[in-house]
């Protein structure tokens, strides 16, 4: 059972897919007037601390950031350095995701500067939370769920601090140039539209007007110029690489074969895959099949990589719509190729949009740390109970027509298929196909696919058979030692609580 109160606020437990429909009007920030802003348009102030002061930073406020600088982010931590100096307490950090580089924030979680993080948590921060060390309860949302929470007023952002690879003095900003160029700033869209106050922070102040203005200066309160907002080699990986692991390549090959045989792959299809080594290999195989058949994918949804760019350039993909760029080739392509479009997740994933790109996708390749015999999926915790990953766009992407999870049957002796997942992040109704190196399981709800593949030479098995196979190899596992104390809530795309994460006892 999930609790009905988190961090002192009432929450609604998950009701089922499509069962919860918030009503009323969208949340709106306060009305500004031009009278409060300089007539010459120059909003530059001396330091982040000064900007925070001018924004009225005080106890209990919610501070938002985006994660386009990924593990090279030099901005987020400095917000809390400044807050600490100002003696402010109990802040809520509301990032679109956090990375190992944000580990220093643990100090501020310990000393009370920060009460909690509401956002995807990776690595050390996830571990910290799992051990029950965070004062408040973490709230994990999908990328779309974050937009939903902002739009329906579940989360009110007091100050958005938005790192920008280039900005002019008015706050018009984009990510196409400058030492920290990261291609797009799509995750910041909801933040600049809905936050009470918006600070743009850049290491590349350019002449007015900075075009295109992905962040529009008329939503921006202050501009701060610093030496460096990011470490380029940690922002985008110079190269994203197809896996070299023979086992993962086998999984990728099985996935591509399945998509071809089941005719899910077809001329004109819409597809999306991640930037992991296995996903890239699948993309590579699909690219070959499309080329052979003389077909093209009408649309690929990013995060994009050089492999997707290659498809665009070789004509097996007509358009790329992109929420983020994973490597330098992708960043360059966004800047140069007219068919490579910026498209924020705000539009693609958001529950409160008037239509949703993800439900239009034919092929959706996703990962998972665990799935269970009912096809429920987990991406947030490991089988040992620790919270170690964010949800990202995963929940939103489950709405696609065909959701495929290519995953190894076990990792380091830990079976991926369980009787029950440690944490439910996505309901089994939405996951269609599990592809492992030892066989492919089709969700029994997909009678059409089962019928279509009944004479296939591919190793189609039931999920129970796959589970038994993994257990025979790995041996029976003991139960992790987990207490009743809730340390994190997992939100569904509509804002209800689908599951919670509980404290791990070492």
């Amino acid at each position: 059972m999930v609790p009905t109160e988190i961090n002192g606020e009432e929450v609604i437990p998950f009701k089922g897919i499509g069962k919860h429909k918030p009503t009323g009007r969208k949340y709106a920030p306060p009305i500004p007037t031009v009278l409060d802003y300089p007539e010459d348009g120059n909003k530059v102030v001396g330091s982040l601390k000064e900007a925070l002061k001018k924004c009225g930073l005080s106890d209990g406020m919610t501070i938002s950031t985006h994660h386009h600088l990924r593990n090279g982010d030099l901005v987020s931590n400095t917000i809390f350095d400044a807050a600490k100096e100002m003696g402010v307490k109990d802040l809520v950090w509301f990032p679109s995701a956090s990375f190992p580089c944000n580990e220093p924030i643990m100090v501020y979680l310990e000393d009370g500067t920060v009460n909690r993080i509401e956002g995807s948590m990776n690595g050390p921060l996830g571990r910290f939370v799992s051990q029950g060390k965070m004062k408040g309860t973490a709230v994990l949302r999908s990328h779309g769920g974050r937009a939903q929470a902002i739009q329906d007023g579940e989360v009110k952002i007091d100050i958005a601090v938005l790192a920008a690879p280039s900005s002019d003095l008015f706050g018009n900003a984009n990510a196409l140039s400058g030492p920290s160029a990261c291609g797009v700033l799509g995750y910041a869209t909801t933040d600049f539209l809905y936050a009470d106050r918006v600070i743009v922070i850049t290491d590349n102040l350019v002449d007015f007007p900075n075009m295109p203005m992905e962040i529009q200066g008329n939503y921006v309160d202050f501009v701060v110029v610093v030496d460096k907002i990011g470490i380029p080699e940690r922002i985008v990986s110079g190269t994203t690489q197809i896996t070299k692991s023979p086992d993962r390549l086998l999984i990728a090959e099985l996935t591509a074969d399945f998509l071809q045989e089941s005719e899910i792959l077809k001329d004109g299809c819409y597809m999306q895959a991640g930037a992991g080594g296995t996903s890239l290999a699948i993309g590579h195989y699909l690219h070959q099949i499309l080329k052979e058949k003389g077909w093209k994918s009408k649309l690929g949804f990013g995060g994009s990589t050089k492999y997707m760019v290659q498809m665009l350039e070789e004509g097996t993909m007509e358009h790329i719509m992109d929420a983020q760029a994973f490597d330098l080739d992708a960043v360059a392509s966004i800047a140069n190729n007219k068919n490579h479009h910026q498209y924020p997740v705000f539009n693609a994933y958001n529950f409160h949009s008037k239509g949703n790109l993800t439900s239009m996708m034919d092929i959706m390749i996703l990962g998972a740390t665990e799935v269970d015999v009912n096809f429920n999926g987990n991406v947030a915790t490991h089988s040992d109970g620790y919270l170690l990953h964010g949800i990202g766009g995963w929940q939103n992407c489950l709405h696609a027509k065909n959701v495929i999870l290519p995953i190894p049957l076990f990792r380091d002796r830990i079976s991926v298929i369980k009787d029950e997942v440690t944490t439910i992040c996505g309901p089994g109704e939405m996951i269609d196909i599990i592809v492992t190196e030892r066989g492919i399981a089709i969700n029994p709800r997909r009678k059409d696919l089962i019928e279509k593949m009944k004479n296939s030479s591919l190793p189609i098995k039931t999920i129970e058979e796959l589970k038994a196979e993994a257990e025979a190899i790995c041996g029976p596992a003991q139960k992790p030692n987990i207490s009743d104390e809730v340390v994190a809530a997992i939100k569904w795309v509509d804002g209800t609580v689908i599951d919670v994460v509980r404290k791990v006892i070492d």
Partner: protein
Amino acid sequence: MSNKIANAGNIGKKVRSDCYVTLELKDSGGIVINQKSKVQVLYGDSNNELCKDVLSFFGIENAILTLEDRGALPLVIAARIEAAIKTLIDTDKEYLLDFIDENNYTSEKEQFRFSRLYLPGNSPSMMLNAGIHEPNGIILDLEDSVAYNKKTEAQHLVRNALRGINFYGAERMVRINQFPKGLEDLKYLIPHNVHMLLVPKCEGADQIKQLEKKIVELKSQHKVTHSIFLMPIIESALGVEKAFEIATASENVVALAIGLEDYTADLGTRRTNEATESFYARSRMVNACKAAGIQAIDSVFSDVGDMEALKANVKVSKGLGFEGMGCIHPRQIKVIHESFAPEAAAIDKAMKIVNAFIIATEKGLGVVSLGTKMIDPPVVKRAEKTINLAISLGLISENWREDFLNEQAG
């Protein structure tokens, strides 16, 4: 017996599915187990139990055992502890985990041996998934890929792997060490359904005879009844000269393989992609094999990144008369199978033979004939294999006979 310490296994951040054990025998203090495992939360207790069980099996009552585990399976942990124990204690006892049912199958002399995948005998992570890539054979290597001071632990690991790791139908092969070490390897292999032994640096029939004698001894001791085949590896100038003698040294020699790295070194030359330096050796060996009625198997192709070059290499190899090749990476298997795949004419002939066999069986005839020619049972068997292979490669359909009969009728 104070202060006796032994180690076994592998350690390091990149090590997976393996562990490192340090065993210190004591005079008192009972059994102390210090475990640090990557999967402690899920397998800490069962690992502990296993450690205690192995120690007690060998009658050890006082010891400190440190287990640094990187997700090793029980069969790996047990092998590591047993190896550590045996460096300290002289014993013939063996700690054997269950022999899994999936590994209860035999191989045959006439089996296709297009691909054989080499795996280092002391690296468990590669063994677990080797079979899913469907090589014709999997070789657990005790020779060159295992460091001299790791031979004992590799013997135990390979033994446990033969028992507990699913080979998924691949022929179960082990490359033993050069003699005399290679003869000591046998007791870890013969009782555990090894199908085929690869004999390195083979230079004469006497080596094979010496080996056979030891195998016969162990087979009777362990009541093993199935054949244990041999694939001697020719890796020297002398070996090449003695190829026919080796090929005919025993009825269990079903194939010869050539090892070109050592051979070219022996010639005092270098291995090139064109391979002109080994043309004589390869042709000579192929000829010896054909004369002896056994398979000729080519060396490995070491550039694992270049599938086009591999393809070209296999074509040449097949053209010279080779019937198989070694692999050092699972991605090579598919390319090798496709390149060694039977040609249309061979498939056609096989279909005729199998068809004749089916008709003869239906009619209750004891003799299969095709036209005026009698067909021996091994030829039928081989034809069936060609057909199965053609089906598995997607060259003909599973219901090929319908099409075949229709075509004949039409």
